């Protein structure tokens, strides 16, 4: 006679089987049985957040900053609806994670029971897949499927909704070793013939350009990318999601493309004759107006695991469906196997043009002795952390300055919300990162508006001794909104001003942390050094920055990539 165990025990056993070491969550009626089993086990730690949104963000960042899968657990009804922003954020950036949610007992479903909501229905459009488990005998295999689906193909969040009676009922526990699904078989290595065509095009190119994105980071393909870029001698740009995919301090790197990308990256995107896109999805923030982006004669090669990313916004000449890493490996092998070499004379001429673009020095800003420039704070942060911190960010101007001025040489060091652009992620992201990387230096670059969207997590940081450093670029404005109002709405600041701000130093102290308010450029470095000296403490650095500073370059919405506004134009 084999032993049976309850659904709640099965949940805990499955997580142990998956070698989960942290679960981020918040309890409630529907998940009490699961929590009781969590109490009894010691395989993984549970992190009690202060709001379910933060549980999802933290699990998401845990994934982003490691090669493991973040897990979170929320209760039915409001627990789930609070989690939705986090789930949608992870979905837009293709982050693998598993969300477990409690549900009312199966017999109550559909009866407007206490804390009931249609979780599968509400989350359907923002998950890779979701399940409602109605029979305890399906529980283990469903959780296995959830981990499998989340982490294969184009990754994404998967939710498993578990009614309370399923956590009480018992059955024999068997965790499947492998999963095979007739309806889900993510593509594999990429078509050799297509890869060959791509290599030919690249070797024949006069003005090659390599544009890479989140896919390179997600697939841990940075070494392959670096090798191929060096072999080809081509310039390279990383999207906001792809930063660190290629070392930012390398001479072949042109900076980020797009709306707030560099002059040289955008010019090269537009003027190249062969564009190789690697795990990037031609986002509207990257290519601007698609009509303007189109160039007669320019050939586009696109490597992506998701066929629906290919030729979605931009028509592609050589589509390659496959894992970035495998495809790059084969491209490298093919380049090395042929005698053909890139056209050195053409490349030289191409680089001469690029150097002209670079000489515009588009990220230059006016230094000041009176006002703290936000760019200056990021530069100092880079200096003091030796470029070695994992940096999380919120959403707004500060996010762009972080992306532009902190040079990421390695992947999984830049953690932000690109696709959904969710204000409030910064602090919970920093928590997830620190727990996944206990020895890392973690900095959260934020704004006075964004930080207040999940500020309650300072309490979680206290409970679990999470010593992140918060770099608040406090411009007393919804700065990104104010910038658009200045440029496109006659400088009318409709609801973009934040008065009645809290005293952030006192707030940090109230939560049991340390804070420093910094008002002069001369004090920036000292404050940073002080904060980073205390490895074991959370510091909240409130930098009172120049309120009028804007992010440049900027491609206005609907404009073409080469129609940038530069700081020097104004």
């Amino acid at each position, binding site marked *: 006679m084999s032993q049976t165990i309850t659904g709640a025990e099965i949940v805990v056993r499955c997580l142990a089987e998956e070698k989960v070491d942290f679960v981020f969550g918040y309890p409630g009626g529907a998940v009490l049985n699961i929590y009781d089993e969590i109490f009894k086990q010691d395989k993984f730690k549970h992190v009690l957040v202060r709001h379910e949104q933060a549980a999802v963000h933290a699990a998401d960042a845990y994934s982003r900053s490691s090669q493991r899968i973040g897990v979170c657990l929320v209760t039915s009804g409001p627990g789930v609806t609070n989690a939705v922003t986090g789930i949608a954020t992870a979905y837009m950036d293709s982050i693998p994670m598993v969300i477990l949610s409690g549900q009312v007992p199966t017999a109550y479903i559909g009866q407007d029971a206490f804390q009931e909501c249609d979780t599968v*229905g509400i989350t*359907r*459009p923002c998950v890779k*897949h979701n399940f*409602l488990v109605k029979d305890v005998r399906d529980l283990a295999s469903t959780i296995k499927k959830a981990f499998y*689906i989340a982490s294969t193909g184009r990754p994404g969040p998967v939710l498993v909704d578990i009614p309370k009676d399923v956590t009480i009922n018992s059955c024999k526990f068997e965790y499947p070793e492998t999963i095979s699904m007739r*309806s889900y078989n993510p593509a594999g290595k990429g078509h050799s013939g297509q890869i060959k065509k791509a290599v030919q095009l690249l070797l024949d190119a006069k003005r090659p350009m390599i544009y890479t994105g989140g896919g390179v980071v997600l697939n841990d393909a940075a070494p392959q990318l670096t090798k191929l870029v060096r072999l080809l001698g081509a310039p390279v740009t990383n999207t906001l999601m792809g930063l660190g995919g290629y070392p930012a301090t390398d001479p072949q790197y042109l900076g980020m493309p797009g709306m707030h990308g560099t002059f040289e990256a955008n010019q090269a995107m537009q003027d190249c004759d062969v564009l190789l896109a690697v795990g990037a999805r031609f986002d509207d923030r990257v290519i601007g107006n698609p009509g303007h982006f189109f160039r007669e004669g320019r050939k586009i090669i696109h490597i992506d695991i*998701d*066929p*629906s990313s290919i030729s979605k916004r931009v028509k592609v000449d050589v589509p390659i469906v496959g894992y970035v890493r495998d495809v790059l490996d084969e491209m490298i092998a093919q380049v090395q196997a042929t005698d053909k070499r890139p056209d050195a004379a053409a490349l030289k001429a191409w680089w001469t043009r690029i150097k002209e673009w670079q000489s515009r020095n588009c990220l230059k800003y006016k230094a000041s002795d009176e006002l703290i420039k936000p760019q200056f704070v990021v530069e100092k942060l880079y200096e003091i952390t030796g470029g070695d911190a994992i940096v999380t960010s919120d959403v707004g101007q500060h996010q762009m300055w972080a992306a532009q001025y902190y040079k990421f040489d390695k992947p999984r060091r830049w953690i932000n919300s690109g696709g959904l652009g969710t204000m409030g992620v910064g602090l919970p992201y920093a928590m997830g990162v620190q727990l996944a990387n206990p020895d890392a230096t973690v900095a959260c670059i934020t704004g006075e508006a964004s930080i207040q969207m999940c500020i309650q997590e300072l309490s979680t940081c206290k409970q679990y001794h999470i010593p992140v450093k918060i770099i608040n670029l406090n411009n007393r404005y919804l700065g990104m909104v104010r910038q658009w109002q200045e440029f496109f709405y006659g400088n009318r600041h409709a609801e973009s001003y934040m008065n009645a701000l809290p005293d952030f130093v006192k707030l940090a102290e109230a939560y049991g942390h340390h804070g420093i308010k910094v008002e002069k450029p001369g004090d920036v470095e000292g404050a940073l050094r002080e904060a980073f000296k205390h490895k074991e403490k959370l510091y909240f650095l409130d930098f009172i920055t120049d309120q009028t500073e804007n992010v440049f370059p900027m491609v206005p919405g609907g404009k073409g990539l080469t129609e940038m506004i530069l700081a020097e134009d104004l």
Partner: protein
Amino acid sequence: MRHILSILLENEPGALSRVVGLFSARGYNIDSLSVATTEDTTMSRMTIVTHGSDDIIEQITKQLNKLIEVVKVVDITEGNHIERELMLVKVRASGKDRDEMKRMADIFRGRILDVTDKSYTIELTGNSDKLDAFIAAIEPGTILETVRTGASGIGRGERILKI
């Protein structure tokens, strides 16, 4: 261009709403949809009639394939195929209209399924154009009620959609 997509999907609760949700979320059109289980009861077959440019149809197909429960998608309008739709139409059939209505049903190879002294209920099958043509051919004022299943389709000859 009008396209008929045939979709094999897992016969699981919620699979249908994923497909329908995809169309509404991405702004694609559904002109008609019909679905039922196949001879293998773990699988359903759905026929969706849609229209859009080639780029849009390509995206629809790719997005459908991405749904975890979708096993296979084929655009059967890409090759020779057979398309049929069923319509039940209740019409006024009294006085001089009565004979005329019977004759129209015959011309369109319809069958009269139910008769009262004032009405006929006619069953018609054919491709969707033919059903439209019938509606256009009879006096609009005589139509009391119509119900259509939406098209279902199958490839001709050796073209088979199966796993």
